[in-house]
């Protein structure tokens, strides 16, 4: 009450190691037991209690506690909160309930305490295990770079975060992970066989947003677990790989994902994204368009191999290959083809000038018309080998231009006749007569009829994996 804010703040939290804190139930005063004993120095009452880690009498007094709390001025509207602090929606908040942390054993004593209506203090001890071969002789130093800057950053992010009841000097010490054994619980490394352990103890306070007192927006409540997950992840990183780079938020989070970057980027106004978490529509849009850009080509099949392109059959243009008007063109360069001119035919029986289609195939393993790949894939290798072995190709000619022809063309699941998606343009259709197939194998200008085939092809690739 007569303390300054910062002082009260630090004093009120129990000392983890050696000093007992006393609490008076009459006047709610707090003092160190070794300074004033068991009787309240303020009102002289005997109704006092030692504040212990696992039992904090202040928890039960919270609603009235704010009248002299150090931050009582900042959230008066919450003083009318329900008398039962456990009514608070976050009273049982445990962000790690479903969090599968492989190094759970390294984290202990994570405690959530309610220090006021809507306020929580979180205390965690993190044991950082460094294997000797990685850290080498510089174990202690190796542990320093991540922990020191990170602790101070965490403090600045969360605001008001202070190590529990330790003066700032000691704070620096413990957060630096200095190996001074015995200063206080959780500040020194414990050396066990073949490995070093670092303890890091810190506590943080989290302030809810307050509509009545729009102060500087600190870390909002709902990002709490994010902060802690980031904290855990940061400590899970190998020592030395920790970049505390002020330029970091500008980096592409998908390229250098690092929990530190996520935290830093949270502090950047306008970029409400933290790794996979987003907090605004804009950030979501940004991530989605990023993903779309990444997949723009990832979705499409890669290039065909030069061997496959070169081994495509070539044949002279025949009268049957010309369209009804008696003329046909290579649909890539739009040059008219003449009878007898050599063209390259793809397995789907679409044909083009060799240089034209080679250019396309060297970037996309698809027919420019129907998107059917030229590379033999596992699921259609049976057909392709049929096609390519001797003169079977004419007999197996499919009719990619006529969607109706696909009906009933499913295989029986044997290697010779695999099941085929109905809209797959490439399938054995022995009943088809040869004439019909060749008259349709020339390029056509209408693309609409192929869109289904192209989609089916991509779906199939999605299900069965890439062609090779």
């Amino acid at each position, binding site marked *: 009450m007569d303390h300054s804010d910062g002082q009260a703040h630090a004093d009120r939290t129990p000392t983890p190691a050696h000093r007992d804190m006393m609490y008076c139930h009459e006047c709610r005063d707090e003092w160190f037991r070794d300074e004033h004993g068991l009787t309240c120095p303020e009102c002289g009452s005997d109704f006092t209690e030692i504040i212990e880690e696992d039992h904090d009498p202040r928890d039960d007094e919270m609603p009235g506690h704010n009248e002299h709390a150090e931050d009582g001025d900042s959230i008066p509207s919450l003083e009318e909160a329900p008398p039962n602090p456990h009514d608070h929606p976050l009273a049982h908040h445990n962000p790690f309930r479903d969090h599968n942390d492989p190094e759970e054993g390294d984290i202990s004593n994570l405690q959530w305490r309610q220090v006021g209506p809507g306020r929580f203090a979180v205390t965690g001890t993190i044991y950082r295990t460094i294997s000797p071969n990685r850290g080498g002789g510089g174990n202690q130093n190796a542990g320093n770079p991540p922990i020191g800057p990170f602790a101070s950053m965490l403090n600045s992010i969360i605001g008001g975060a202070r190590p529990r009841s330790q003066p700032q000097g000691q704070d620096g010490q413990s957060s630096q992970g200095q190996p001074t054994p015995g200063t206080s619980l959780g500040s020194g490394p414990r050396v066990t066989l073949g490995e070093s352990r670092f303890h890091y103890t810190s506590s943080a306070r989290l302030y809810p947003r307050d509509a009545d007192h729009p102060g500087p927006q600190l870390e909002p409540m709902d990002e709490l677990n994010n902060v802690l997950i980031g904290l855990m992840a940061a400590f899970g990183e190998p020592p030395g790989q920790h970049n505390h780079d002020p330029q970091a938020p500008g980096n592409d989070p998908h390229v250098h994902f690092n929990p530190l970057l996520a935290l830093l980027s949270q502090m950047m106004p306008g970029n409400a994204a933290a790794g996979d978490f987003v907090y605004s529509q804009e950030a979501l*849009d940004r991530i989605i368009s990023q993903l779309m850009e990444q997949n*723009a*080509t990832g*979705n*499409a099949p890669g290039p065909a191999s030069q061997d496959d392109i070169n081994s495509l059959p070539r044949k002279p243009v025949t009268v049957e290959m010309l369209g009804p008007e008696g003329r046909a063109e290579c*649909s*890539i*360069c*739009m*040059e008219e083809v003449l009878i007898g001119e050599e063209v390259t035919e793809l397995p789907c029986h679409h044909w083009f000038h060799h240089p*034209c289609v080679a*250019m*396309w195939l060297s*970037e996309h393993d698809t027919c*420019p*018309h129907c*998107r059917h790949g030229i590379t033999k894939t596992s699921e259609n290798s049976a057909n392709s080998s049929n096609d390519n072995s001797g003169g079977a190709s004419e007999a197996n000619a499919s009719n990619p231009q006529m969607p109706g022809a696909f009906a009933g063309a499913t295989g029986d699941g044997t290697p010779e006749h695999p099941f085929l998606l109905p809209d797959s343009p490439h399938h054995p259709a022995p009943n088809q007569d040869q004439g019909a197939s060749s008259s349709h194998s020339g*390029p056509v*200008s209408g*693309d609409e009829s192929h869109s289904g085939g192209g989609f089916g092809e991509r779906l199939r690739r999605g299900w069965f994996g890439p062609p090779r």
Partner: protein
Amino acid sequence: MSAGAKKRIMKEYGECMKDTPSGMKINFDEQNMTEWEILLDGPEQSIYSGGHFKLKMTFPTEYPFKPPVVSFKTKIYHPNVSNDDKGSMCLGMLRPDEWKPPNKVVSVLRLIQTLLIEPNADDAIEPSIANEYKENRKEFDKTAKDWVKRYAK
């Protein structure tokens, strides 16, 4: 740009001249044949009716292996046209992964016209405009017509 690409662009231009979609005019500069200027009247049956839109179609060096780029030089309120100084339109066959070399410029031009008559809100470049188109068609029509009056006269 390869000779083949130039030849194809010339052929495309010839085809467009033979069969220009109604309400369209193509300004073709032989010195710079990779950039076409297209003057497009808002289709009668669309909310853009009465507007005159200037578009640019740019053919990439890799054409026809890469799609041409279409952009509106005249501001237009449309879910599929980006609401910035680029006015870019990117959907359907113009999308890099959807593009096929056999696609013709004439069909691209027809696609543009079709989109003015019926925007494709499910494949929009401007989500907010698309949303308005779907949820509040009256407001969308009003703004679109207002923009026609303001920018496309």
